[in-house]
């Protein structure tokens, strides 16, 4: 039972993006209700790695917002003294295998440096100082001291508690059946169990499922699920000093066309990410698969992830892999997430489509969303993220 009937904002989705949005709206004094179809952490935010990776961001709005988001995380660590957020600043390195990758990465690193990111290229000898366990097949790497990480579960729990403290409501296992525009201009959100609440604002933070929510109000939101599978190791002593990614991870993420053209052959978008959690387990990934909404782990993908890990870091042969996870990265066509109000549906906002950057970008997404809802004047550059950028294409197809 939902104890009141009307809200300032109803947020659909209690993943990290929905919770961040509800948290920042609550700080602005809004009465919020969060509706989640599943349970706590059942979606992508509970089945991903923990990185706040700046090196992977394209220079431009994603990188700018990542800087701001990292600052919000640092503030969170200071302000939420009672939460163990497992925030770590281990730095990150991107491992480079071929001269072609090196050329691409040198250019990419230069662009990032021009945009204010502290990142360098290390030669093999320097790389080995940080990462004595990586295989000899790598010829160089990048290094940035700024790459960080945080426990998504801990952040979500922290948001949850604070949303409740300011009177916000959260209902799990409460999928939405329909959203209609009432005569007074407010939205009527009906749950599958038949309850209806009204709200000035609806925030679609349904991640990989945001398209379905958009459909309920006749809005086209081109977000598709890409399955990412990871394996988790037992707790082990540190393997190297920083977290790791492969240059292929960057290419898979930034230039999926290149990976396909090159015929990587695996068909599962395999790339390498290697991050140490606060407890000493390693999260090792990952794949990017077009598998619809089939969430099960697959034998082939797990084998590929594990083989690659042992190939890249041979000492992992001695380590037990204790768990596996799979989650849907909500991907857009242009690699930018969606944040803003739909022009044809005033009061209906979308904050979704972060693909692999949801954890990194959650605080800044929530903060900007709250500013948009409150009608603050915001920078022109945010129009790049507007959901309305997809409208013309829909009409062509329509």
């Amino acid at each position: 039972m939902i104890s009141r009937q009307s809200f300032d904002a109803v947020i659909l989705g209690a993943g990290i993006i929905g919770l961040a949005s509800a948290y920042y709206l609550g700080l602005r004094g809004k009465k919020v209700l969060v509706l989640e179809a599943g349970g706590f952490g059942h979606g992508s935010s509970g089945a991903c790695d923990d990185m706040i990776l700046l090196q992977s961001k394209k220079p431009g709005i994603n990188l700018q917002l990542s800087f701001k988001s990292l600052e919000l995380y640092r503030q969170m660590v200071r302000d939420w003294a009672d939460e163990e957020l497992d925030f770590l600043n281990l730095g990150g390195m991107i491992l480079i295998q071929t001269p072609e990758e090196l050329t691409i990465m040198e250019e990419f690193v230069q662009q990032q440096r021009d945009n204010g990111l502290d990142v360098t290229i290390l030669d093999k000898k320097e790389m080995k100082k940080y990462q004595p366990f990586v295989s000899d097949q790598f010829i160089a790497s990048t290094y940035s001291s700024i790459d960080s990480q945080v426990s998504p579960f801990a952040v979500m729990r922290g948001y949850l508690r604070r949303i409740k403290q300011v009177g916000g409501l959260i209902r799990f296992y409460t999928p939405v059946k329909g959203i209609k525009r009432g005569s007074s201009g407010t939205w009527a959100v009906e749950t599958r169990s038949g309850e209806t609440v009204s709200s000035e604002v609806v925030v679609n933070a349904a991640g990989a499922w945001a398209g379905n929510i958009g459909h309920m109000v006749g809005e086209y939101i081109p977000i598709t699920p890409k399955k990412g599978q990871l394996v988790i190791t037992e707790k082990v002593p540190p393997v190297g000093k920083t977290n790791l990614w492969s240059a292929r991870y960057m290419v898979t993420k930034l230039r999926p066309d290149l990976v396909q053209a090159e015929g990587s052959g695996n068909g599962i978008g395999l790339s390498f990410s290697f991050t140490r959690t606060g407890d000493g387990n390693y999260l090792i990934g990952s794949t990017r698969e077009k598998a619809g909404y089939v969430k099960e782990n697959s034998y082939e993908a797990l084998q590929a992830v594990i083989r690659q890990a042992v190939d890249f870091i041979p000492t992992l042969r001695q380590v037990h892999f204790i768990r596996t996870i799979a989650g849907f990265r909500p991907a857009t066509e242009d690699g930018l997430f969606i944040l803003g109000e739909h022009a044809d549906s005033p009061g209906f906002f979308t904050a979704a489509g972060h693909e692999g950057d949801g954890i990194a970008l959650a605080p800044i997404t929530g903060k900007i969303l709250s500013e948009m809802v409150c009608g603050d004047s915001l920078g022109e550059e945010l129009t790049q993220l507007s959901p309305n950028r997809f409208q013309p294409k829909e009409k062509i197809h329509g």
Partner: protein
Amino acid sequence: MEKREVIIVGAGPAGLSAAVEAATAGCGVLLIDENSKPGGQLFKQIHKFFGSQEHKAGIRGIDIGKRLLEEAENLHIEVWLDSEVCGIFDANKVWVVRNKKETVLLQGDRIIIATGASENAVHFPGWHLPGVMGAGAAQTMINIHRVLPGEKVLMVGSGNVGVIVSYQLLQAGAEVVGVIEAAPRLGGYGVHTAKVRRAGVPFFVSHVVAAAEGKDRVEKVRIVQVDPRWNPVPGTEKTLKADTICLATGLTPLTELAFLAGCESTYSPVLGGHVPWHNSAMRTSVRHIFIAGDISGVEEASTAMEEGRMAGLQAAASLGHVDEADAMIRGKAIQARLDALRSGLFGEKRKNAKESIFSAMGNSNNGAR
């Protein structure tokens, strides 16, 4: 990919019984266990079982284990030991790592998961010290490896595991300095409890561990009385000298494989928590997959064996090895034995819990996918 008709994960009482039943019906069976020896927990159960004649009452667990192994050998059942099952994919593919070396992917027409349960831990200051262990671990040490875990033992939990292991520790030459129970009354069968009491072991009801203390291992333990709301009562702390604390604080079904395979779950506090939903034929929501024993709800070795037989029979029947009428008659006989095991003061609760699992998905046939 190699194929087997029936692949059974776990060679404890449930898995062995399932293997024997399925192989007797004519199925090609592969039985897989991660340990170096089959038998699960049976071989450390040196006490006599309860129940009626047909439940092997009066026979020690270890002897029941030997008989089951003989039956399995006579049926030439294929057994892979030192083999870990790491996942089940597409409802019928089983990923096995053999001898920590070789990865094998097998296809099974039917899979029976009989992975048992794991011991629960309770947390208190000092719980990480060497000397704190599961009661089952202590039982393995004394009855299988013939090693005494310590000289002065405090048992936490007065259920059957707590009192049986206490008695066996006494037999093995340890001193049991006490059995503590958080609830206001004792939990185990009277017969087992009385044997421990007659040996002079003090029992403390409404008591919990306040802290274990010691430098490099447990040296002493502070216990404290709790009120009906489980809050410590000031002034009731006692310090006992002990080098070992055994935790007999319940078991949790080992459900990971079933859930990885996509089996729907249901919650049963009486039977140990989340268990895969199953019907009375031990079939889960994934059609190819059956379960048996503690994974389907924590009970006893005797019920585990009957559930194993049921799963083995029904898996064989679903493959056409047993004709329908025959399967029904034999299934009813097994069900009758299970009902008998689930009667009485303790049994009735488990029977009701089991029945609410069966009905959790409405009509069992519609529940299967």
